[in-house]
C-alpha cells in the first residue's frame, strides 16, 4: 500500500517536448504577410556588406607563432599583450615578395562603453594603431582610425561620420592624403538593400563610384559589388545548418584582367571553429580555433600555395576573453 501511495505521488512523466518542437509550427503566416514598405529593417553598414563572406573566407592566416593575452581590469577596461614571431612578406622590387623573419611585441589597451569605444595598440617596431568609436547622438556615430609609423609619409588617419536612419545608412569619410568618400545604403524590400559609394583621392586626382546590392534571407546572403575602378565582386553565403555555412566568392579586376574565385566552409562547433578555403589561384588554406579551456584558445593556421610552392604554417594561443 505504501508503494501505491508513492506511485500516485510520483511526478508525471515529462511531456514529449522534443517531438512537439520537431513538428513545423502551424502559424506559417510569415510568407503571406503583406510587405510593409514603410517599416523596412535597417540595412547593414556599407563596408560590412560582405561581412559573412569575409568572415568565412578570409580568416587571419599567419605564419609563425602568435600569442595573445587579454586581461580585463574592469568591466570596461582591459589590457592586452601580444607576441608574434615569424615571417612576413615584404614586397621587394627585384623578385616579387620575399619573406623576412620578424618578431614584435604589441601592447594594447581597450576601453569599451556602450557609447564610447577606445582601442590603442603600440608595437615594438614603432607603429601605433588607434581606433575611436563614439556615439554622438542616437543616430550619429563618429569613428576615427589612425595608424602612425616610424617611416615618414606612411602614417594614415581616417574620420568617418555614420548616420543611421530608419531604413537607410549614410556615411561620410575623410582621410589624410586628401581622401574624401561618402556612401549610402537603403533597404528596398525586407530582404534586398541597395547602396552606392563615391570617393575622391586628392593627391592623385582620382575619383570613383561604386554600386552594391545585398539580398539576404535567414539562410543565405548574396551580395554583388561593382566599382568604376574596374572591380566586380560577387559573393554568396549559404547557412546549411546552424553549425555549418558554406561561402563562395568571385572577383574580377578589369584593369589587370585578374579573375579569382574561391570556395570555403565554416564549421562552428561547440569546442572549435574550423574554416577552410580553396582558391582558383591554387591556394588551399585552413584556420582552426580550438577551445582548450575556459578562455584559452589554441589556433592553427595553414596555407598552401601549389602554384608558387609557398607553404605557410602557424600556431598560437589566445588567453583571455
Amino acid at each position, binding site marked *: 500500500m505504501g508503494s501505491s501511495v508513492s506511485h500516485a505521488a510520483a511526478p508525471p512523466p515529462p511531456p514529449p517536448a522534443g517531438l512537439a518542437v520537431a513538428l513545423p509550427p502551424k502559424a506559417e503566416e510569415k510568407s503571406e504577410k503583406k510587405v510593409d514598405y514603410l517599416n523596412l529593417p535597417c540595412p547593414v553598414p556599407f563596408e560590412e556588406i560582405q561581412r559573412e563572406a569575409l568572415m568565412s573566407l578570409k580568416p587571419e592566416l599567419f605564419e609563425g607563432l602568435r600569442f595573445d593575452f587579454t586581461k580585463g581590469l574592469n568591466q570596461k577596461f582591459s589590457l592586452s599583450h601580444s607576441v608574434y614571431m615569424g615571417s612576413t612578406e615584404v614586397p621587394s622590387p627585384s623578385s616579387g615578395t620575399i619573406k623576412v623573419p620578424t618578431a614584435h611585441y604589441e601592447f594594447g589597451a581597450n576601453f569599451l562603453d556602450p557609447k564610447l569605444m577606445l582601442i590603442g595598440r603600440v608595437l615594438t617596431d614603432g607603429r601605433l594603431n588607434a581606433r575611436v568609436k563614439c556615439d554622438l547622438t542616437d543616430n550619429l556615430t563618429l569613428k576615427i582610425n589612425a595608424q602612425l609609423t616610424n617611416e615618414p609619409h606612411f602614417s594614415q588617419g581616417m574620420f568617418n561620420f555614420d548616420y543611421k536612419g530608419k531604413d537607410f545608412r549614410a556615411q561620410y569619410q575623410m582621410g589624410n592624403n586628401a581622401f574624401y568618400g561618402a556612401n549610402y545604403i537603403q533597404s528596398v524590400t525586407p530582404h534586398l538593400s541597395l547602396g552606392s559609394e563615391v570617393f575622391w583621392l586628392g593627391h592623385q586626382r582620382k575619383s570613383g563610384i561604386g554600386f552594391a546590392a545585398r539580398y539576404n534571407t535567414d539562410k543565405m546572403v548574396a551580395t554583388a559589388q561593382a566599382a568604376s575602378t574596374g572591380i566586380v565582386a560577387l559573393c554568396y553565403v549559404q547557412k546549411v545548418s546552424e553549425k555549418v555555412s558554406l561561402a563562395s566568392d568571385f572577383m574580377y579586376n578589369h584593369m589587370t584582367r585578374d579573375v579569382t574565385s574561391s570556395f570555403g566552409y565554416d564549421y562552428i562547433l561547440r569546442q572549435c571553429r*574550423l574554416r577552410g578555403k580553396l582558391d582558383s589561384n591554387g591556394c588551399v588554406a585552413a584556420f582552426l580555433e580550438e577551445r582548450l579551456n575556459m578562455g584559452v584558445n589554441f589556433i592553427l593556421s595553414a596555407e598552401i600555395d601549389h602554384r608558387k610552392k609557398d607553404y605557410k604554417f602557424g600556431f598560437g594561443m589566445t588567453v583571455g576573453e
Partner: protein
Amino acid sequence: MSSSQGRRGSLPGTSRDGEGGVLSRVTSSISQSPVVYRGKRAASEAATVTKKLLWSTGRAAWIAGTTFLVLVVPLIIEMDREQQMNELELQQASLLGTSSPSMAAPAPPK
C-alpha cells in the same frame, strides 16, 4: 627470320661475299632497316609519354594528398570529437535522468 629474308632481297650484292661478311651485313641490314628504326623511335616516345604520365600522376597525387590533409583531416577529427562529446553528454544526461526519480520516490512516504 622471314622479314630479314625479305629485306636481304632489297639490298643488291649481299649474297656474294663470305660468311662473316654475310652475318654482319644481315645484322646491319636488320638494325638499319626502316621498320626497326621506326619501332625504336616509337618505343622511346612511349617511354617519354609514360614517364611524363607517371610524373604528372605523381604531382596530381601530391597536390590532392596535401589538399586533403589540410582541408579534410582537421574536419574529420573535429567532427569525431563533437560526436564523442555528444555521446558523453547523452550518457550523462540519461544517467542523471534515471537517478533523480528513483531518489524522489522513497521521500514522499515520510
